[in-house]
């Protein structure tokens, strides 16, 4: 508190301009999301009565569109409810494997001193700097050859890579942990697996949770990967994207589409509200902390 007072900075013209830019940015955000929420609450009858006006304020509002969107939004025999379930499986599954693999590699490279660690961590750095564009056709071919295309296990296998920034975060986090706990557990007769699962992983559970939630949000919002590798089981984002493209001419679908948009935004927004302190705290205090 004292430090806050001591470091308090006075407003000057440059800061005032910055404040103006941020107010403008916030206004655009509110207007965009506000417009979406407003239209999603407008009843279909009112929308038609107002001459299919996109800009008019609704006279009648209700939650009917949200319920109706589950029966109206459909793609490849899957209704919006089914798409939501697919989204949960896709986001949770991919987030789990994409955090687990870097976590395992981060752990062994931090705790077991082997020359091979240099190769593993070197591969992570290499993959970050060397970008091979246009490898998607090759990936599709490999997935087809292995009969993994359009399958959940195939998608999870594809995403279970440790070649990411997450691996370096885990490595740094495990390096920062004291070895005393592990040594005490080993003296008590714990196996290597016990030490890893029952001693070290619980010590960094916040880091694991934050990285899992971040990955979950990323996969929840991703619609291009399911579009290519899981086209028979559309997720909510992918299904709604295709539904939106295919029904552009039907004006009366607007309210359902927008209701669908709001429904897709809702889970990640709720997660953000619940985990705001973790997500923002870790971000502003310098990296993800355990």
């Amino acid at each position, binding site marked *: 508190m004292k430090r806050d007072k001591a470091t308090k900075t006075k407003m000057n013209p440059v800061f005032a301009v910055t404040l103006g830019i941020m107010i403008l940015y916030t206004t655009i955000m509110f207007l965009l999301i506000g417009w979406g929420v407003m239209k999603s609450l407008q009843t279909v009858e009112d929308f038609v009565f107002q001459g299919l006006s*996109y800009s008019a304020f609704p006279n009648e509002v209700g939650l009917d569109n949200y319920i109706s969107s589950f029966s109206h939004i459909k793609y490849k025999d899957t209704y919006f409810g089914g798409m939501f379930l697919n989204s949960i499986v896709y986001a949770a599954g991919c987030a789990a494997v994409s955090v687990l693999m870097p976590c395992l590699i981060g752990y*062994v490279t931090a705790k077991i001193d082997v020359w091979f660690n240099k190769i593993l961590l070197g591969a992570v750095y290499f993959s970050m700097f060397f970008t091979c564009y246009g490898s998607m056709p090759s990936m599709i*071919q490999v997935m087809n050859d292995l009969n993994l295309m359009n399958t959940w296990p195939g998608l999870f296998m594809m995403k279970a890579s440790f070649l990411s920034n997450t691996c370096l975060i885990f490595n740094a986090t495990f390096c920062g942990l004291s070895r005393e706990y592990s040594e005490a557990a080993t003296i008590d007769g714990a196996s290597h697996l016990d030490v890893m699962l029952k001693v070290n992983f619980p010590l960094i559970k916040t880091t694991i949770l934050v990285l899992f939630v971040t990955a979950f949000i990323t996969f929840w*919002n991703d619609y291009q990967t399911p579009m290519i590798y899981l086209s028979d089981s559309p997720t909510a984002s992918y299904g709604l994207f295709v539904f939106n493209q295919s029904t552009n001419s039907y004006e009366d679908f607007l309210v359902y589409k927008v209701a669908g948009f709001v429904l897709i935004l809702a889970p990640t927004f709720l997660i953000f509200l619940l985990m705001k302190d973790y997500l923002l705290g870790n971000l502003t205090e310098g990296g993800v902390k355990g």
Partner: protein
Amino acid sequence: MGRHRQEKDTTAFERLKNKISWFFYGLTQPVFASLRRKNKGKTSIGGARRSELIFYSLIVAIPLIQVAIFYIYVNLNSFVMAFRKYDADTSEYIWVGFTNLKDVLTEIFTGGVLQSAAINSVLVYGLNLCLLPLQVFLPYYIYKKLPGAEFFKVMLFLPSVLSTMVLGLLYISVMDIVVPELAFKWFDKDLPALLSGQAGYGRIISAWTFSAIFGFANVLMYTSAMGRIPQSIVEYAKLDGVSPLQEFFKITLPLILPTIMVYITTGIAGIFTDQVNLFTFFNSGSTVQTVGYYIFTKTLTSTGYQAYPIVAATGLIFSCVATPLMLIVRKLVMRYDPEAEF
């Protein structure tokens, strides 16, 4: 008496025997102890290390197999694919040498779609760099805890949580329909669709505007870097009468320079993957393209494996451009690294 003497003799004999056995015991003990130490050292430490290595191998095996198939093999296959052609009649790939690369290069240098896609990609990166001063100064406002800092921090982070696809579709609805409708209603003015109605660079800049507005979540990484600057440095500067702007240019900016450099360097890797949300806005039908959009839509709309070799060749050529470029830029920016540890 005789019995007593016999007992005494026995005791003397026993004592002698004990002495001899203790002498030999004394001799053997160090030998046994050293052997025990040697063996103990060999079995327990060696065993522990062996079990540690077995554990290591078991943990590392599956991730390595995954990388071998889905990274190494996929990329090698992509490289080989760039030199082949798919024969639809036989459903097999045939070797065509440098033909694909030649075709792609011809398209780039003779004003084809790929040339404009490459120019657009570089233009988008340039526009992103133009935003850099603002992207660094906004976090400074939050770092200095000026009015509304906490609220703006949440607002800046929000786009990274919400679906870009959904925000993009809301954005195109507002720009193409709502704004022209309001312009007509309020000002009796006929406006074209502000996004779809644009062509050429106008469309790219309209699409980029969305990415710029909703890409501000990245700026919070600078707040993170600024948060690590020791308070003592800032307080010393204040005692010397440094103004907030001087503090920004003379203390904050030099100390967060490594973070900015990482942003610039990694940004190069993203030049040829950035789709600027063109696919979200226009599906696969946009005439104005970036390299990222071209590669994605060409793969998506390919009939079977037909277009794959050309996509692989395009990717190979742009990888050959981006990788050295990134290394050069990295080397250049490293010269300005203050190497300050804090």
